[in-house]
């Protein structure tokens, strides 16, 4: 009965133009609660633009985006985050000023739970420290979950890119999200790392967190995605199960290529 599950995210007729170039044209699709949906397509197809529209970093020119029943078009990114939507970035965005560590980065994910105020920071240290200790425990737990507890005190920039992406994932999980937008999280990972990352995504899904995954690694996508939507030149080219997408001649021509070596399901 999974097909009857409600859509947690619903994108309707979204269009965005940058100086005359159609980055997104009338894109519509749903993401079902508890699913991993992959968003694939060639470079420049509009995938990151779509993620930016969903989490409120930019507003689309027209169309609607419903997240948990709220129309989030026009909401600022911090309000969308408050509804339980978190994300990682294709170009890694770590907080690095003032020697911020990996742990500091993950702890920022607790911002919405801690809601720090000046008054409490100065006059209510006991309460602040207690909440901070709890957040610290949780952050270390998440770093352990992504396999980076030993890097907690490292500068984020000193880690390999693949690991920085895992720190971003831990930081997003720290917000206790209902849904995650992951923008090419596996780029920079080698084959073994991709395998353990696939397991990681599975266990995140098991926790009931919905994922919209932008990814070029087709092996990962085919292994994990419940369904796939394909963008090409800002338009939706196809949508369906991994098997259907693999067999779709239009998708093969536009993106997958004719060799299809990566595009098969693991037994």
């Amino acid at each position: 009965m999974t097909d009857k599950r409600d859509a947690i995210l619903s994108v309707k007729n979204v269009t965005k133009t940058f100086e005359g170039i159609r980055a997104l044209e009338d894109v519509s699709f749903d993401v079902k609660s508890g699913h991993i949906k992959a968003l694939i397509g060639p470079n420049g197809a509009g995938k990151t633009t779509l993620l930016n529209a969903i989490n409120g970093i930019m507003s689309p020119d027209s169309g609607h985006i419903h997240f948990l029943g709220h129309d989030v078009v026009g909401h600022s990114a911090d309000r969308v985050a408050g509804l339980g939507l978190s994300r990682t970035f294709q170009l890694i965005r770590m907080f690095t000023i003032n020697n911020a560590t990996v742990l500091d980065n993950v702890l920022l994910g607790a911002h919405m739970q801690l809601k720090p105020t000046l008054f409490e920071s100065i006059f209510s240290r006991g309460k602040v420290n207690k909440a901070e200790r709890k957040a610290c425990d949780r952050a270390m737990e998440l770093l352990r979950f992504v396999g980076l507890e030993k890097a907690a005190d490292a500068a984020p920039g000193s880690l390999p890119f693949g690991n920085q992406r895992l720190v971003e994932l831990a930081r997003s999980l720290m917000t206790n999200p209902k849904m995650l937008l992951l923008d090419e999280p596996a780029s920079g990972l080698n084959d073994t790392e991709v395998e353990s990352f696939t397991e990681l995504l599975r266990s995140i899904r098991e926790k009931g967190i919905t994922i919209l995954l932008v990814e070029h690694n087709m092996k990962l996508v085919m292994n994990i995605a419940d369904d796939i939507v394909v963008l090409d030149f800002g338009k939706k080219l196809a949508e369906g199960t991994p098997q259907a997408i693999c067999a779709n001649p239009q998708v093969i021509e536009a993106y997958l290529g004719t060799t299809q070596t990566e595009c098969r399901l693991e037994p």
Partner: protein
Amino acid sequence: MKLLKQFWWILPLAFIAFYPVTLAGGSPYWSGLLIFVGIYVILTVGLDLLMGYTGQISVGHAAYFAIGAYASGILTAKYGFSPLGAMVIGMVLTGIVAWALGRPVLALKEYYLAMATLAFNEIVVTLIIGLEWLTGGASGLRDIPSFSIFGLVLSNHVHYYYFVWAIVIIVIACSLAVVRSPFGRTLVAIHSDEVAARAFGVDTAKYKTRIFVLASVFASMAGSLFTHYMGFLAPDDFGVLTSINILVMLFLGGIGTIFGPILGAFFMKLLPELTYQIHDYELLLSGLILIIVLVFMPKGLFGIFTAIWEKMFAKADK
């Protein structure tokens, strides 16, 4: 060595506590010098919260220094308020001005923010000169009483010195509490990457405004302390040059460190005393030292201190 590592802060505290009675030997001039240092520490620490931690440039910090100073000066000299009451009113007034200004102005970035803060500094100075009936205009505001708390008059320089430094220590303690808390982490996130901070639920405009208000209230306090020490106010003390001086102290001491501004303020205020002998070349020499520090020591004086400190303990630990 271990004791030193843990209790190092006793040394500067002891210096501050015994300075007027030992080194300064009760001399009003030398005590007065450190009163100025203390006032500038308050200003610079506030600016460090705004610039060093939150990454919001301000080239007009003297504007809030001015509002505090004139609020205290006018209310005590003309309307007979108690200095403490006037100081609190000044802080509230400055806080309201900073809050009203913060939202629109802090939406600007970099050069535009610098220009807007600079312009506000100029506006405040122009108002001080223009509102002659209230502020005394260019000829200044006279007959400002010494500071007094609950009838105890602090006209003695040594007494006032202790009062000012008690406030300095409170300001530093508050600032450390802010930056070493989740609030400080949020400020650093805004400084690093505003878009990413927003994606994690940070209402960046709100947090920038809050820290701007705190920095301005600190500056207002410094203004009130300055007023009662001088007994006389003139608009020259609050121009853009003063704002730039505060900026220089911040960068010289080490931005984003809280302790750096203390060193910066000491250095900038004491340098003229050291170069006093070669009077004619004073400005040249202090300018030269400044350039050397800024070019060769990007982390400022505090960076040098921590480097020496770490070397010292690296050896001790072996």
